[in-house]
Each structure stands twice: as C-alpha cells, then as structure tokens.
C-alpha cells in the first residue's frame, strides 16, 4: 500500500512539475496581440490549469481510495526471490530502450547500411533469439527487404555516416545495392 501511495505521489508531482513549469514559461510570450484580447497565453494557460486541477483531483481521490483499502500484508521473505528475477528483467527492459537510442545516435556517424544489420542482430538477441542461424537469417531477411524497398524503390537518402572509414564503406555498399 505504501508503494501505491508513493506511485500516486510521484505521478502528481510529475504533473505539477509539468503544469507549473509550463505556466511559468507562458510569461515569455504574454505580449499583447492587436485585435485579439486574449493574447497567446489564454489558451495554453486554460489547458495548464485544467491539467493541474485534474491531476490534483485524481491524486486526492486515489489517495482516499488507497488509504481506505485494506490490502493483504506484504511478506518480504516471499518477495525476495521474485525480486532477484525482476532486476534481471528490468535490466533487459532498460536495454531494450537504450539499444534503439544507441542505434539512433550512431546512425548519422556510422551510416545506415553498416549499422542496421548490427542493430537488428543485437536486438533480436536481446529479445530472446539464441539460435545463430535464425539470428542471421532473420537479420538478412529484414535488412534485404528494407534495402530493396527504401533504397532501390523509393530512393530514400538514408544516412551514410561522416566518420571517415564508415562513410567510405556505406557509399560503397550503396553503389553495390543500386
């Protein structure tokens, strides 16, 4: 139950932070507009006040419900084994977020044509595929389809990278594909 209250508290704090900071920012564009009495601030301020009101109301009602509810008592000993499993799973989930972002960061630097198969292979492995032949096959199939559709059919100018070695390799691959 304490965890629930902490979660509710965190949620309302996030909304309050968003609302208060957004409201503070509206003072940066509160110049009057000729011919329009409400200016540029009225609409966003009304929305922000709505967000704050609903967030506080949601928090108040949820806290009342959480305080009144009588849930089962927590057994720390029973939770210790699942907790160890959760940490590993949480790390995998975090990695599932980080890997695409890393791919995106590398994309302009190392280029699409060389980086993408490595990303596909790694992401498939992260999601649980362990058979090397399947990893290679699925990577090859997805990569080939993307290349055919977007490079040969649609001629989308995908990044070729600007790091010296990768720039040359990507351009060479692009010439081969076309």
């Amino acid at each position, binding site marked *: 139950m304490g965890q629930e209250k902490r979660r509710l508290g965190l949620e309302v704090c996030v909304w309050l932070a968003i609302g208060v900071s957004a409201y503070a920012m509206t003072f940066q564009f509160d110049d009057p507009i000729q011919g329009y009495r409400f200016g540029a601030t009225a609409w966003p301020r009304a929305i922000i006040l709505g967000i704050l009101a609903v967030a506080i109301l949601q928090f108040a009602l949820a806290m009342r419900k959480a*305080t009144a509810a009588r849930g089962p008592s927590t057994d720390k000993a029973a939770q210790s084994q699942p907790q160890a499993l959760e940490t590993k799973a949480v790390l995998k989930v975090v990695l599932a977020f980080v890997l695409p972002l890393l791919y995106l960061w590398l994309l302009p630097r190392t280029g699409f044509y060389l980086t993408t198969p490595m990303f596909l292979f790694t992401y*498939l492995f992260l999601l*649980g595929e362990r058979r090397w032949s399947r990893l290679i096959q699925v990577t090859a199939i997805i990569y080939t389809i993307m290349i055919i559709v977007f490079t040969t059919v649609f001629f989308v100018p995908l990044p070729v990278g600007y790091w010296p070695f990768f720039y040359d390799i990507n351009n060479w691959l692009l010439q081969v594909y076309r």
Partner: protein
Amino acid sequence: MFWDFLSSSVHLFTDPTTFAIFIFGLLAGMMFGAIPGVNMLTLGAVILPFTAYLSASDAIMLFSVIYCSGVFGGAITAILFNIPGAPENAPTALDGYPMTQRGQAGKAVGAAVLCSSLGGLASALLMIAATPMIASWAVRSFGPPEVFSLIFFGLTVAASVGASNLWKGLLSVLTGLLLATVGSDPAGALDRFSFGSYYLLAGIAFIPMVLGFFAISEVFVQGEKMVMGTRVAPKVNLDFPSFRELWGLKVAVLRSMMIGFFAGILPGIGAVLAAFMSYNEAVRWSKQPEKFGKGEMEGVVSSETANNSATGAAMIPLLALGLPGGALTAMMLGVFQIHGMEPGPLIFVTSKELVWTTFAAMVFANISIFGLGWLQTKTVVHLLRIPFRYLAPAILLLATIGAFALRNLLVDVWVMFAAGIGGYYLRRSGYSVSGIVLGLVLGDLGEAAFAKTMQLTNYSLTTLMHRPICAFLLTIGAFTLAWNIYSGVKKSMIQAETGAK
C-alpha cells in the same frame, strides 16, 4: 451520383496501380490489425511519409481501405489475445476474449467478420448518400463558432474513453492540447514553448509523434511483456456462428449501426466512441446484463458493428469539414498536407475523383471483408505464430526510416523515440495515447476556431449561444463533462467506502 460511383469503381478495378494499392491496403490493414503488437495505426503511421510518392487519390483511398480492414483486423487480437488492435476494439475484448477462453474463438471471430462487414457497408452507402449533402450544408451553416463547438464536444466525450479512468483520459487529452500549443499561436504568430529552436517554431512534427506514440510505444510495451514472460499463446477454434445465432442478434446489429454512424460523424472520436457507446447500450438493453463480460456474443457484435459503421461516418467530417473522426483519419490529414491539399466542402468540387475513388474503395473493402475475413480466420493462426521478437526490430526499423524520410532530419527520429518512450510510460500508467494524439490534432484547429469565434462574436459568449448548433453542442459537451466528473468523483468515493469496509 450513381454514375460517379460507377466510373470510380471501374477506375478502381481497371487501373493496375490503384487496384494494387487497394489490395495492399485491404490485406495489410487486416494483417497489421491481426498480428499482435501492431495495428492499423502502426501501419498508417509507418506508410504515411511514403504516401508522398503516391497520387493524392490513391493515398487517401489506401488509408480509407486500411481503416475499414484494420478496424476489423484489430478485433482478431482483441478476441484471441485480449489485446485490442486499436482502442475501438477494446469493448470487443470484454466478451471476445472470454469466448476464446471457453473455446469459442471461431464463433467470436466469425461474428466479428460478418458484423464488421455489415456495419461498414451500411456506413459506406450512407456516407455516399450523405456526404455531399452535409458538405453543401456545412459551407452555409458551419463557421468557426460551430467548428469550435464541435471540437469542444468531441474532446469532452473523448476524455471518457480509452484510458483506465476518466481522470487519465482527461489528462491525456489535455496533454495533447498542450503539445499542440508548441510553435506559433494562430492569432498573432507569437513564438510559444519553442526554446529558441527553429525546429519547434513550426510546432512539433505530427507524423513522428504518431509513429512514436503508436508504433514505438507498442514495441516497447510488447517487448516488456516478452521479457517478463507474460505473453501467452491462445488456442483457436474455427467454428463459425450459426445463422440462428446471428438472426437473434439483428436488433443489436441495427442499433449498433445507427450508434456507430452518428458517433463516427463526431470529429475526434469516430470508432472509439461508437464501440464503447454501442457496447454500453447493448448491456443496458439486455435482459441479462450480468452475462456481459463473461463471453456474450452480443457484446462482440455490438462493438464490431458500431466501430465499422463509424468508418464511413468518420470520413464525412474529414472530407466535408476537414476535421478528423479518429486517429487514422487524423493521419489522413497528414496525407492531405503532404499533397498540399486542404479537406473541406470545396474538395467535392476541386477533387471529385479523389472523393469518389475513396467512396468506391470503402464499399468494396467492406464487401471484401466478408470473404477475406473468412479466409483470414483460417490463415491467421499461422501468421500469429510469428514470434514478436522478429516483428519488433522490423517495426522499429520501418518507423525509423519513415520518420527520417519525412524531411531527412534525424531530429524527427529523435522526436519519434521520445514520443515512444513517453507513450510507453503513459500506457503503462493507464493513460490514452489516442487521447493525446486527438488532442494534438484538434488543439490547433480548436484554438484557431476559438480565436476567430471570439473576434467574430466580440468576445460575447451569449452571442455564441444564440447560434443553435453552438448552443446545442456546447451545452451537451458541458453537461457530458460535468456529468462524467460528477460520476467519476462519486464512483471513487463509493469505492473508497467499500474498501474501508
């Protein structure tokens, strides 16, 4: 009208490119709707940038066909996995999934196939008959005050569906409205929330946001379930419902058609409101309401008939007024923007071929759902065996290329991933990404309409209330909002008291 429809139908089936796009939309919509982890919104978001390479007519036709087939396709995952393919399939899961658990998946899917097709076909025919009339009436009767009132009403109703509770629904819509204020204001072009960035001066790019909220967040959500080991493969029984069973539900079907059509006309809601309202009415009118939620076929029928009836109706505000009827029709606005066109009453004059090609395609798409839906039911078992770990990287890659291809800017891809991560946390917390996207789309339109309204009426709300359509919509919208808030507070207090006991 008949000759326009006939010539468009001939064009649809005789032009190889148009026909190929029609078939692609039909199959891809059904497939993307049926495969767990993706839905028609994912497909729509991914192919949106590439519609620049198609003609405007083919692009809009493609999305309308995807709308028809995808809404049905989403029922498959709702029934088999309790994962609605789209928010409008959520009520379908309430009874469809319990039917699957009882080994009646075939009956549930069969009922969904037949009723989706019936609802969509009726709606498409009504759309053909009604859209030109509404378009000519709209020019005379709909000004900025009516547009603002319609958007206000649509948003108040949107807040009550899609999220885990009313408050999160309201916050979702309000968040979307706030995101829409980034950029220049419509009255004085003052720079708002841009942080000195040239990129944000024009507002947050809509297409990367849609890609992120739907495609990327879906990958993250499903990926988490895979890592946690909570995904369970369902069993499928392929028995179809009998004629007697379906004939017994004829009243539910007719009622759902009407609800779906009229709900679909409202901008900002479309099939979502249609499905929830129809399901609620089915429970209310039933002699045994306690059976709903435990595997009652009428629940599946009501939801699926209504959400497909809304597809044709949702095209009416889009084509006649330029207001989207749902998330996918909101993407269609993007298609119009890509082609430098503006939907509205004049489109029936300036782009008649586009309109009638879309009409013809939707009629034949709904007819095709009859046959293809049956075929899909036989084959979907095999498609559903594709492990999600193979689909996830493909979707990520498609979305990345799609966001990049829009303007060749990596910033768009970063926006997409940021929206994806935000969408992941919001969905886990019970918020509605559909509500955010609708707020994002309608926010700009709503504020512009509000600014013009205030200037036209000299800032007088009473003048606004003298216009019958405005008075009606604003009153109903305000009442709906007040009633929902009152009901939400009362329900929370009752739950708190029940928990204390």
